């Protein structure tokens, strides 16, 4: 186990008050902690969960209010607490939604003006959430999971609903109370295979009812589902100016090369169509403009879609631009593997973002284990030969957030890129850039200084090795020939 004191930031989001760009707060999760970093002042950082003694005090205060013990909020998660995978800020910047990996939980925080977080609810999903989106009115969270299902949950659980899902022991206790008679689901008259018949005989011997999974104890609605791993989810509203009406859509992508276009709630059961053309998994979808969809995944191209009519408008080859950067792979510790260039370089797109800043309007692209941030003018998306430019980074990008006109990148400094020659210098885990109208890019010194200071102050200890699959899980989506099944 390699314990590392500069655990990378797995995900970012940024609060930019409207008309007041001078109050930006960056939210960055590192391991189980979420940091709120004031981007205008040095050394103005808050952390969730707070240190233990503070948490205890908060608990005490809660007790004074005479809250029943069953509903007590846990402010400090126990050691070995789950790592945060995703952060999504509500559109009104008042709430932050965090997804954690090991316990499959969705936590909702209220965000103070200074950026401090107060946990309001904690809801554990049946499968690990893989994509999160909030509706424009901030009322509902859409959550897609590893099993391909998309649920809608109210952002704030209705009053009367417990704010935390019960612990596993509570669930077992409630199950013991159930004493329903077990009825086997098949009869002897059913046509059976030998194995099935044996299973049926065994079922008849069991006195106790078979434990079934508890249904979710909070309000939720299953909207749609893929029989595949869901990888990304986007909500979009198109307004028809002639009709004066608005149409809501849900766009979902999966590991089996599909991008699905469904109607929004309350007609999410209606599939409008599919954008088909990828040959490998789709890992990310992005709408740089409401009517244009860009998708990327295991293919060496990005697809540009007229998604309303399900037409493929362009395929942008990214193989050349990405190939200029050697893969930046973490040594396994089991003795370095022989360095050999694979015959065919595999690309796994790990992120797509729109950078909607005036003439520099760009699409930002990252690929797994490639130490660069790629950018492409949005105006060029439909041109036959668009140019993918790159910003070399001194580590692998893990997440990107567009904060006004600057781009903040989270960099995994535990895997150093050898090509930059900056190893002697301390590399900040958070770096920022600006893309200019002539498509060149710059570092923003002022902001980088603040980020550099924040990076120095934040020491999160963690086992980076165990996080590898979570931080670098995209290439694993690729199918490996499958099992033999003749």
């Amino acid at each position, binding site marked *: 186990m390699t314990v590392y004191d500069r655990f990378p930031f797995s995900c970012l989001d940024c609060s930019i008050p409207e008309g007041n760009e001078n109050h930006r707060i960056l939210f960055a999760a590192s391991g189980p902690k979420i940091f709120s970093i004031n981007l205008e002042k040095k050394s103005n950082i808050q952390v969730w969960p707070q240190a233990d003694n503070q948490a205890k005090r908060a608990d005490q205060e809660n007790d004074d209010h005479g809250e029943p013990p069953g509903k007590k909020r846990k402010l400090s998660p126990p050691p070995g607490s789950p790592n945060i995978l995703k952060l999504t800020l509500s559109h009104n910047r008042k709430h932050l939604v965090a997804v954690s990996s090991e316990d499959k939980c969705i936590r909702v925080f209220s965000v103070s003006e200074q950026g401090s977080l107060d946990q309001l609810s904690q809801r554990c999903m049946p499968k690990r959430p893989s994509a999160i989106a909030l509706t424009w009115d901030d009322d509902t969270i859409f959550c897609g999971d590893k099993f391909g299902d998309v649920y809608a949950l109210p952002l704030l659980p209705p009053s009367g609903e417990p704010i935390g899902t019960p612990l596993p022991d509570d669930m077992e206790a409630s199950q013991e109370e159930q004493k329903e008679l077990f009825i086997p689901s098949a009869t002897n*008259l059913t046509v059976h295979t030998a194995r099935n018949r044996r299973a049926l005989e065994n079922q008849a011997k069991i006195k106790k009812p078979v434990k*079934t999974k508890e249904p979710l104890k909070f309000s939720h609605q299953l909207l749609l589902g893929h029989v595949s791993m869901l990888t990304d989810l986007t909500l979009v509203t198109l307004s028809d100016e002639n009709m004066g009406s608005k149409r809501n859509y849900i766009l979902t992508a999966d590991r089996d090369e599909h991008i699905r276009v469904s109607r929004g709630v309350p007609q999410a059961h209606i599939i409008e169509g599919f954008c088909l053309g990828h040959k490998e998994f789709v890992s990310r979808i992005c709408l740089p403009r409401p009517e244009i969809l860009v998708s990327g995944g295991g293919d060496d191209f990005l697809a540009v879609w007229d998604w309303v009519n399900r037409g493929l408008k362009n395929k942008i080859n990214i193989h050349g631009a990405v190939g200029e950067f050697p893969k930046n792979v973490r040594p396994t510790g089991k003795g370095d593997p022989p360095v050999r260039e694979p015959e065919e370089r595999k690309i796994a797109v790990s992120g797509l973002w729109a950078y909607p800043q005036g003439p520099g309007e760009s699409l930002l692209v990252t690929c797994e284990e490639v130490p660069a941030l790629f950018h492409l003018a949005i105006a060029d998306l439909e041109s036959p030969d668009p140019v993918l430019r790159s910003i070399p980074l001194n580590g692998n990008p893990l997440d990107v957030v567009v904060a006004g006109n600057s781009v903040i990148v989270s960099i995994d400094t535990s895997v150093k890129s050898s090509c930059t020659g900056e190893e002697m210098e301390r590399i900040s885990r958070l770096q920022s850039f600006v893309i200019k109208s002539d498509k060149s890019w710059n570092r923003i010194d002022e902001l980088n200084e603040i980020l550099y200071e924040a990076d120095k102050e934040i020491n999160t200890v963690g086992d980076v090795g165990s996080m590898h699959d979570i931080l670098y899980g995209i290439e694993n989506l690729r199918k490996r020939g499958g099992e033999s099944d*003749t």
Partner: protein
Amino acid sequence: MPGQPNKRQKRDDYRTSLSQSEHRIQLPKKKFYRQRAHANPFSDHVLTYPESPDTMDWSPYYPSFTITNENESHEDTEISNIPHLSKRVEIADIGCGYGGLLFALAPRFPDQLLLGLEIRTSVTEFVQEKIKAMRQQNSETGLYQNVACLRANTMKFLPNFFYKAQLSKIFLCFPDPHFKARKHKARIVSSTLNSEYAYVMKPAGVIYTITDVEDLHNWMVEHFEAHPSFERISKTEEDVDVCVKIMKSETEEGKKVERNGGHKFVACFRRFEDPPWP
């Protein structure tokens, strides 16, 4: 395992001799194509499927319905090179097994294309061999030219084969019951999968289901009735539908249940027209 290589050898020999024989008049023997009754719909089988319905070449499956394009288009795209059929598949048997239903339906619907979809390789091969033999046996009447079978995992790839509103009938006959609650998502009917069936179906198209497991029957009824795109067809309407009659008597499993003295539970559902946008 003793005996195992011998069995495989016999199968291989049988299939090579079958493919070499010029006149495949004889029907294939089922005993050389047996395969365990279950397949995991979630695993990445080595599957071939088209990127999209546009790229599907149906001509090897329905040769007598293929249009030979005289005036070739000069566009040299992948899609324009794919031969077209004079009509589209409209009847699909999902999980067709050994194809009993397909062979009974094909002569009844000579003007429509029927497709069986089966996830098990050997079973698919059996149906494909049987189709070849049946076509040759009936070369004078031209029967069975309208039926084909291919290997597919429809739970994942239905929209790769069919366009929106393409199918008028879908059969789900004696599907794997997946008794364990944990396995219920593997069932061929679920509230989320029903949206995909609705997508490939024409308005007023019908989904036919039959099973001998009452529990599964109730599950299918519950999930289709709860889905806003479907309504259950009344018993009287069911009774006069020729497809229901064939489905009850001609499927392989249906015959097995008959011999066993078991029950058969039938339910059919009609697809509504999509409501206007809210």
